């Protein structure tokens, strides 16, 4: 029964002459962009309802059931509104700034691993392909690059509006983003050191292990194996604080602090351009929550490897975890007051950054220690083969694209047991494509 159900989700490699694994990235692009743009009104509704619950008031309740269509009505209103523009703005920069904000935040979603899709070759060999738009070698660096480009939308909006409040908002935003990017990168680095890869789907796969030797199969890839606990909790705390600061949300929403800066960098924007900044902010929230889910909370992995959980497909788990992140955002917004500017900088530079550095040392030491104890040589962990989900244990699995670091399962023990061979396990893989590539 269960095997039959699982077999439903194994697709043939060729369908009417079309190679299906090649179509996967396009499905991922359509799926993720479509999901992001359709979930946005829902997100705003969730935020307003949760905030209303926390503040003991009714919240949106006029349009649709429980005010569900309120944000759609708001979006319609923003579409219809007149596009007013102040006189002395820098016209081209003023118009291009919201577009930059939206494009950079949506394109960062390209490397989030939604789930693995299993295909069956004609000869019966099964292999899995990660459902993501770009399975690039530099996954996390790509997200960091895109999030560092996001600051340009804000800065250009603030500067081109020719308004002192906008300018102050833009300056604050750029300072805040630069400061918190460092601690964000350090916390992510802890996980990267443990996983030995920058590819998000490999990081997810490396969480899909047994928590300790001899553990029951139900615990494979469970809550205990995710990096939030394996990296000893501190990195996830640092990342969560930094991600809130990166997206300029309360309590770090100084760039748009309404009590002092009117509305910060988007003071002078009306109608759809304002809506685009709004969109960019919420999409950025989705993306950083998605990165949080994939890096620290197992991404598409179910919390326990038992039946009712494993029947739910991976991308649903990922979306649930992202929604957990959104709820956390709202929770903080409902409870914490805004930080003072110097307190914000103190927290970023004097607390999170040194803590992140120290923790990186601890994690690296731990990693080196386990490598030396278990595998007898440093850097061994990077080459442990990772099984993909939803596969039978005896079936060999590979990921589709640049799996530079992965090795053939069969030659793996040989690699480990020959500590005398020069570079020991790393050099042979430079030569070229690993043997196990099916494509």
């Amino acid at each position, binding site marked *: 029964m269960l095997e039959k159900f699982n077999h439903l989700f194994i697709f043939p490699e060729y369908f009417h002459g079309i190679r299906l694994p090649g179509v996967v990235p396009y499905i991922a692009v359509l799926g993720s962009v479509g999901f992001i743009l359709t979930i946005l009104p829902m997100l705003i509704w969730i935020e307003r309802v949760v905030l209303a619950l926390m503040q003991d008031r009714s919240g949106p309740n006029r349009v649709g059931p429980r005010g569900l269509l309120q944000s759609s009505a708001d979006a319609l209103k923003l579409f219809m509104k007149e596009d007013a523009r102040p006189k002395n703005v820098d016209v081209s920069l003023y118009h291009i700034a919201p577009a930059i904000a939206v494009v950079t935040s949506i394109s960062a979603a390209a490397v989030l691993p939604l789930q693995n899709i299993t295909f069956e070759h004609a000869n019966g060999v099964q292999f899995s392909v990660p459902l993501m738009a770009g399975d690039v*070698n530099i996954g996390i660096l790509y997200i960091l690059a895109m999030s*560092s480009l996001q600051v*340009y939308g804000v*800065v250009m909006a603030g500067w081109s509006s020719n308004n002192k409040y906008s300018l102050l908002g833009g300056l604050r935003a750029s300072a805040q983003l630069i400061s918190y990017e460092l601690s964000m990168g350090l916390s992510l680095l802890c996980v990267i050191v443990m996983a030995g890869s920058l590819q998000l789907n490999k990081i997810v796969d490396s969480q899909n292990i047994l928590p300790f030797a001899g553990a029951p199969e139900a615990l494979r890839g469970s809550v205990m194996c995710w990096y939030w606990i394996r990296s000893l909790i501190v990195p996830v705390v640092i990342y969560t604080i930094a991600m809130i600061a990166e997206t300029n949300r309360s309590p770090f929403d100084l760039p748009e602090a309404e009590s002092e800066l009117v509305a910060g960098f988007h003071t002078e924007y009306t109608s759809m351009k304002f809506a685009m900044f709004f969109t960019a902010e919420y999409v950025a929230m989705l993306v950083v929550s998605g990165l949080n889910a994939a890096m620290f909370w197992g991404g598409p992995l179910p919390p326990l490897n038992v039946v009712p959980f494993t029947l739910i497909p991976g991308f649903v788990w990922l979306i649930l975890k992202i929604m957990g992140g959104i709820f956390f955002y709202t929770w903080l917004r409902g409870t914490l007051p805004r930080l003072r500017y110097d307190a914000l900088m103190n927290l970023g530079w004097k607390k999170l950054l040194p803590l992140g550095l120290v923790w990186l040392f601890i994690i690296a030491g731990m990693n080196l220690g386990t490598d030396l104890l278990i595998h007898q040589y440093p850097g061994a962990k990077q080459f442990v083969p990772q099984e993909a989900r939803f596969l039978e244990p005896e079936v060999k699995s590979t990921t589709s694209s*640049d799996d530079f670091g992965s090795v053939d399962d069969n030659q793996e023990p040989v690699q480990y047991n020959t500590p005398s061979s020069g570079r020991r396990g790393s050099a042979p893989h430079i030569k070229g494509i690993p043997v196990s590539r099916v494509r």
Partner: protein
Amino acid sequence: MSGESVSFWILALVSVFASIMMIVSKNPVRSALNLVITFLCVAGFYILLSAQFLAAVQIIVYAGAIMVLFLFVIMLLNLGAPEALIEKGSLQKPVAVGLGIFFVVLIISSQAILSLPQAVGRPSVTQYQGTVEAIGLSLFDPRQPWLFPFEITSILLLVAVIGAIVMAKRKV
């Protein structure tokens, strides 16, 4: 024309145009933003050359950090387009144009373009030499000569950072 050459020509035209605009525009903020576009185009060239890691680092370090700091300083000083910066009646412009034309003529007359090495066969750089793993393995391989310069450079940067802090520190 392959997709690679199409993207190369688009990137090339945009980057040349943006770098000319960076020099020409009178507004410092616009100059800085044009420089950002140039950096992004250079990152695109790296991707075309299969150097993904270099492209990401180019965007993160140059476009994401250094240019944001540039913009930060420019906006903080709020230079706008002050008249004092626009030099009038100086010899710089005609001399620059003259020297530029001279340089172009020199290149064409020396036939340097014609004697550039032509690509023979398939490019030697494979898809796997630009990955993070390949760069890391060659950078930290003790048998390669890159480890020592890398460490020395990082110590140099550390000294520079400490020096900046010492200079900026208030006297206690």
